[in-house]
């Protein structure tokens, strides 16, 4: 069974801190994604990566950056956390387009609170 593991279930940080959210997948997927999930707003794509060291902006990249040094690991970085970044962050992975069938495998999420 595919495993997408997010390192923390809950995080509490202070405004201005640099925050790292880590995600690891064990299915050798090429694509990895970071979404944030907010009530009433659904899931919004922050960044995605289709290969090691490759990344593309999603719909709401402002205030975030990402790193993918290894195929199985995709990190989301909040350079200077702000209160409006309090949210549930979901990592997902998938095969390349021609194999993926629309199926994303999601992690269990990290609930980040910025005080």
């Amino acid at each position: 069974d595919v495993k997408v593991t997010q390192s923390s279930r809950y995080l509490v940080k202070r405004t201005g801190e640099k925050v790292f959210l880590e995600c690891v997948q064990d299915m050798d997927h090429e694509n990895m994604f970071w979404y944030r999930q907010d009530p009433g707003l659904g899931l919004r794509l922050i960044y995605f990566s289709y290969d090691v060291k490759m990344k593309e902006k999603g719909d709401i990249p402002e205030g975030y950056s990402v790193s993918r040094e290894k195929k199985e690991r995709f990190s989301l970085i909040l350079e200077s956390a702000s209160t409006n970044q309090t949210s549930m962050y979901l990592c997902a992975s998938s095969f390349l387009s021609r194999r993926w069938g629309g199926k994303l495998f999601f992690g269990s999420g990290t609930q980040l609170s910025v005080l």
Partner: protein
Amino acid sequence: AQRVTQPEKLLSVFKGAPVELKCNYSYSGSPELFWYVQYSRQRLQLLLRHISRESIKGFTADLNKGETSFHLKKPFAQEEDSAMYYCALSVLTGTASKLTFGTGTRLQVTL
């Protein structure tokens, strides 16, 4: 730009009643649509995809290109159907396919 609209935040039905969760999309390309579901304390997971024309857990969804809709239906709701449902549209960028999600509808099935 692509867009997915789910007009209802909450849909409350009685057990045994029919269910229809609405989804409309706008996309200039050829659409690929999906329904994802998140049960309480579980991960978001794929429920069904339009291309498969399958029925999963009694749910079906038909792509209507004329009405740009992909509504999710089930004839008889069960308590275990209570969950958050997201409609999603696949968009092919130059490098990868990505999903654009709607805002979600919470389905509440009551006795």
